[in-house]
Each structure stands twice: as C-alpha cells, then as structure tokens.
C-alpha cells in the first residue's frame, strides 16, 4: 500500500502546481480588479491608483505569482483585499462550515443511499421497490435550488419546525446545530443518495445472481448472511469509487445550497471573493478545493486498492 501511495503522490503534486498557475492566470484575465471594487462606483482614477498601490497590484504579474507561491509555502496567506481580515481565518471559518455541511450530507448519502439500494434490490414488496424508484427519480430530477426552496417552505414557513437558514457551529450547541443542519444537508444529499442507491441496487442484484450465491443458497446459507457477507462486499468496490466522486459533487453542490440556506461556508466566501475580485481569498480557496478533490481521489483509490488487492499489485 505504501508503494502504491508513493507512486500516486508526484502526479498529485504536479496537478496542484498546474492548478495554481491556471487559477492565478485566469483570475488576472478576468476584467475588473479589487481596487475598482473597493473604490466604489463614484471613485476617480486617483483613488483607484492609490488603492492599487496599497494592495501591491502594480507589481509585475510574475512577481505577484511568486509572492503567492511563497505565501503558500510559509503558511502566511496574508490579508484579504476586499472582505477584510486574514485570508487564512476567512478560509478556516468557511472550511469548518462547509466541512460540517458536507460531512452531514455525506452521512445522509450513505444512510439513504444504502437504504434505497438494499430495499430496492431485496424488498419482497413491490410497492416498496416502486416507491424507492419514484423517490430516487424525483431526487435526481429536482435540482437543489428547487428542492431547497420547497424544503424551506414546508418545514420553516408552513410548519415552522426548522429554521430556514443560518448556522450554529456544531461544537457550540449540537442540539441547535443539528436543526440548522438538517434541511441543507438533506437538500445536498438527496441527488447523490439517489445515484448511490441506484448503483448499489444494481450491484446487489448482479451479485445475488452470481453462481456462487446460488451455490451458497443451496448449501443453506441464511439470506441475511448471503446479503451482508457475500453480495454486499462484492457490490461495494465500485460504490466506493462512486462515493468518492459524489463527495466532489457534494462540495460543488454545497456552493449553491449554502446560498439557499444562508450557510456561511466556502461557497459563500468564493462568491463574495469573486464578486469583489479578492484575489488572495479566491486563489487560496480554489487551490484548496483542487487539493481536496485530489485528496479525495487519492483516498478513494487507496480504499479501492484495499478492497480489491488486484489494483495495488498492478
């Protein structure tokens, strides 16, 4: 496993370096800059020039890029241009909120996806299987900005049992935090849970149709043991890869869901940073997201290799 990991690391680092260059270049190609954003619509050229000088935006681009890479290596990300405060604090706060939301959504994806998959594949009742098919189709078809609004209308405005938005950090007050977390996490989780459920259902059905399962059934192995010890393990490896990919989707989807539920995470920070051309915040944030994707992919491959030894021997 260690050798496998070492073989994968250089390419991951190369991806990060390439991404840093692309992020820097693309941001500079986009018209508008932090100085004009800060100066406001009624500013004159002298004001803009003074702000640009203060932010160091008058330096050559290559030196700005080198300065950024240096700040990444030293860990001192510097101040945000437009939002205010230290970039590392802003990203740290947002990361905590997004991680909380993504993790809760991931747990829901696993719980709901497993339930959808197992019941869909094995329930003896036709109405259960049909209901799951309808629910997963709806969850896939309805985009989060629609399901989010519907969830808010039902649970916050009509029933008034859950808050429509906002966040209480989980470590501050877990009971309140769970209530703030439930709707956004559910909204974020539903499409991925549906995908996972359908994939798992197909996997279990395929596994249950294998000759070895029939042999085991004939030998008197109990249905529960057949499912948990034989069918499920065979269906899992591709599902784990899918779950890794869905984690990426969850992170991406969180951007939209955070806006609907006023969840102060990285999505909101990215939107705010981009709107104001806050280069330090946007650059560091995008690179962090690339790093998370790379890491998730790496972890997925490691888990896959652990589940299927043939992979790590290749």
């Amino acid at each position: 496993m260690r050798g496998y990991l070492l073989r994968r690391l250089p390419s991951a680092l190369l991806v990060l370096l390439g991404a840093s260059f692309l992020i820097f270049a693309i941001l500079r190609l986009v018209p508008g800059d932090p100085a004009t954003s800060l100066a406001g619509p009624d500013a004159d050229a002298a004001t803009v020039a003074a702000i640009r000088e203060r932010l160091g935006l008058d330096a050559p681009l290559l030196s700005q890029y080198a300065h950024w890479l240096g700040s990444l290596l030293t860990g001192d990300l510097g101040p945000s241009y437009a939002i205010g405060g230290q970039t590392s604090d802003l990203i740290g706060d947002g990361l905590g909120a997004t991680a909380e939301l993504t993790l809760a959504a991931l747990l829901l994806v696993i719980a709901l996806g497993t339930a959808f998959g197992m019941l869909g594949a094995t329930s003896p009742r036709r109405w259960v299987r049909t209901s799951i098919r309808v629910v997963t189709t709806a969850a896939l078809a309805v985009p989060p900005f629609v399901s989010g609004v519907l969830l808010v209308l039902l649970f916050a405005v009509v029933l008034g049992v859950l808050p429509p938005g906002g966040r209480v950090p989980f470590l501050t007050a877990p009971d309140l935090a769970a209530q703030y977390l439930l709707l956004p996490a559910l909204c974020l989780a539903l499409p991925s849970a549906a995908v996972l459920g359908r994939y798992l259902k197909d996997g279990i059905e395929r596994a249950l149709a294998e000759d070895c399962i029939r042999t085991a059934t004939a030998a008197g192995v109990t249905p529960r043991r057949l499912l948990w010890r034989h069918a499920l393990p065979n269906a899992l490896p591709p599902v784990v890869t899918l779950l890794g990919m869905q984690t990426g989707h969850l992170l991406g989807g969180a951007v939209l869901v955070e806006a609907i539920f006023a969840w102060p995470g990285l999505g909101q920070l990215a939107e705010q940073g981009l709107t104001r051309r806050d280069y330090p915040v946007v650059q560091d944030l995008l690179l962090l997201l690339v790093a998370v994707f790379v890491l998730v992919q790496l972890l997925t491959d490691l888990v896959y290799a652990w589940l299927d030894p043939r992979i790590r021997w290749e």
Partner: protein
Amino acid sequence: MTELHPSTSTGPTRRTTLRAAGGGALLLGLGLTGCRSAVSESSSEPKGAGAAPKRGGVLSVAINSDFTPGLLFAQSGQSYQHRLIYNTLTRYDDRLSPQPELATSWTYAKDGRSITLRLRDDVTFHNGRTFTADDVVFAVKNLQNPVRAAQLRSTAAAITGFEKRGEHELVLKLAHPVNNLFDLFEFMIITDPDTIEDALTGKKLNGTGPFALKKWSPGSGLSLTRNDRYWQPGRPYLDGVELRVIPQADALVSSLRSGQSQLSFNVPGKSLGTVKNDPRLTITDYDTGSGASYIGVNTAVAPLNDRTVRQAIAWAVDRDRILAQALGGYGLASAAPWPKSSPAFSEAHRTHYTHDAGKARELLRSAGHRTLELPLLHLALPGDTAIAEALQYDLKQVGIHVTLQPTDPATGQKKLISQDMPALWTMGHGFSQVQPSTLAVSAYPFNEAKNTSKYRSAEYTEVVREAWTKRESSAAEANALHEKISGILLDEAFIIDLVVRGQIQVAADGLHGVTLNKFSYLNLDNAYLA
C-alpha cells in the same frame, strides 16, 4: 422438513426495518423536540407584548451582502451598521435641515470660510475613552485619504484647517465655501483613531454608537450588543442586533416570513408582492431617494454625440412600466435624478420626458435616422437585467435595436471608472438625496470634470462649481441654481434618469421605531420589539 430454499426475501426483516425507523425517528425527535428548538431560540421578542416601548430583545436584520471592513468609510450597499456602532456629527430631518447628534450646535462664518462646532461632552467610546474634538479632526483627515474611497472626499478635502477651542469646540476652516458640509457631517462616522487598523480588518469597531461589536463572522454577519454607556439616556431599548447575511433572495424572504428575521431592506422588487400578502409583515417606503436607475449615454460615440438622438431615447422609455414590472411598484418614475424630499425636486422636471414613442421616432428622423443598432451594457443581476430587457423592448419600438451586454458588477464598475463604457449602459447612482450639488461633485456619472459619458461643457462646469462653492443668500437663489443644473441634465440627456428609488423596509409587525439616515445608516436608538 428442513427448508432448503428460503421462502422469505433476503432483505431486512420487518423487525429491523421498524428498529431502524424507530432509531431514525428518535434521532430526529431529539433534534427537533427533545432539546431546545432553533426556531423558538431565534424568536427574539421580549416577553410581554404591549404598545409602549419595551426594553429587551435581539433584533435580527436580514442583509444580502456581508459587512466589508475595507468599505467602512465609503457608502456601499451595506452601510446599515454604520450608525449602530458609530455616531455622526449631525443628521438631516425629513426637510433636509441638519439636527444635532455629536455636534450640539454650529455657527457658520459670514464669509462661509469656516464653521464652529460645539460638541457633546458626555460621550464615550465603547472602550471607555472620552470623545473630544481631536476625534473629529481625525475623522476629517481620514476621509481626505484617497485610500478610504469615501465618496465625499472632495468635500472633506475642502477643510484645510482646524482650530481647537477646548476639548469640545472646534473650528473647521475651509479652502472655499461649500454648501454640502452637512452632507459630510451625516456621512462621516466618528471612529477611534487608536483602533483604526483593527477596524479596517473588522477585528475591533470602537465607536460611540448605541451598540458595540460583539463579533463579526465573515459570511455570517455582525453580532452587536447594547452599549450600556450610550449618551442618550435609557437608549437603546434593544439588547442587541444581529445582522445576518442571507444572499439568496428567496431565502431572505423565507427568513422574514418564518420570523427568523424581523427587518430587511434587501427584498428585491419581484418578491415584494409575496411580502405584501403576508399580514405579519409591513412594508415602508423611505423617500430617501438614495438610489436611482438610469441610462448612461456615451456622448463620444456617433450618433449619440447628437443631443437630439439622446433626447429621442429619453422619450422612448416607459418609466412607469419599468417601475411596475422590475421594481415591484416601489419608487418614483422620473426623468430627473431628484427624490421628492430634495430641494431640487420639481414635478415639471420629473415629467420632462414621458413615454412618447411617436415623439422619439420624430426626433430620430429629424436627426437623420430611422433605425439604429447599439449595445447596452447592464449588470448581470436579476433586477438590472429586468430593467435592461424593458429598455430593449421600448427602444425597439422606436427603431433602436440594442444588444444586451450582461456584465458582472466588478467589471461594470471598472468600465464605469475607466470611462470604457459602450454606447449605452444602465446602472444605478446615488447622492441625489442630499444637497443637489453633491450629485455633481461626488457621484462619478454626473461629475462635471470627468464622467463616463465623456460629457463636458463650460456651462455645466460653471453651474456645478457655483452650486457647490457659493453660499446662497436666499432659497430663491439656491432654487435658481438647482433649476439650472436640472435644466442642463434634462436638455443634454447624457444621463437619462428612469426611476428614483428610496429604501424599501420590510419589518415584522412587532418592530417599531426604525429609521434610516440619508445614507441608509440604520438608526435603532428608539427601536423596540413589542
């Protein structure tokens, strides 16, 4: 007989399903009912409702963009916290007459070259330090720094000397008379010089206002707590204020409708219909006229260098339809930039151009054109896009085919400042809600020396400078100058005003005593939840 082939399914048994369901219900129940309810926790009304002012409660204000420390000294779309944490020297009443705040009285020199301010001597900052004349000197010098991007910098820069007469009396000396000094006094927040750097990073906002900063959580908003040493006895009534960032319009409306927030000024026009139908919410339209929608015309682009063509555009647009469809009916359809509360307002100017497609076509023909193809830049935001589409339709009716150029706000702003706009653009401007001269010296689109329309005229420069620097001896003289400015703006049509907008307040029924100053700084000195 032993059963070899299972007759039951391989799926979970009824017992395990029920167990799982029960466990799930238990978890959900714990979250929803077993502990505190997040819904009732966020309800901040004090116990015991009544009509008289009540002490207590935390007011939750829904805002659509976060506080930006870098814009602390500029007016931005989010200046609500300015008057909560800080005070200003004076404030205008509804008739634009200055009223005391940290300055108790003032005397203008006869030549208009200096003003003597007497200041309150019972005011302390949140950290306990006493407010003195030095803080006013710092505040003025601070706004003179271009890095602060204060829109009223030109007025602050006219103050060239300070003479302290004790700790609470100060003479401000002016390079030349300016007639919008009280705009500056209402705009300029009084900050603590020692903590200015912390203020600009949002760490510490030390003011003299009714509320002190508890915490700024970027992306979430500001949490403020009552200043027990506030100089107004018995005020504020509220224990605290939460400014909560809710960027998405539907979420913001849901927050108000579910009672999670009790106040907002950021409900977009199209959502006001929903709000109007909710009996628990009240809409108030402030006639501050702090914003206006307009068409900007690049006078360097042919054939828009011809005034007749610009006037044709001004006749072609249906301002009432834009008001009804894009702005929810709140605002004032007007060809001139002034709100009703402005001394420059006149009904004749407001209706100088009305919707008259026939007249627009006639003017175009007289200028030698039957059809025109022009680009129209607009900000890619829902409200701005709706206005741009309405303009596109109106102009098409008279033969002007415009191609929409949706642009993100940062790019739009850069193009505006660098005079890089296409033939036509539509945006918003401010600064017509205070002294009329401020519009032409502080709002870039109208600036006499340099504006995005690239419009220059000696007559305009002369009248603007005169209106700004001359102390009028009478109301009639002032009116004559306002009349001249309006006349040039309407005749030359390099900025074609569409709708003058105030602030639309949506508040829960139990909230009373909320006011805004002319720069949309929220004043909650007398606010209470009943």
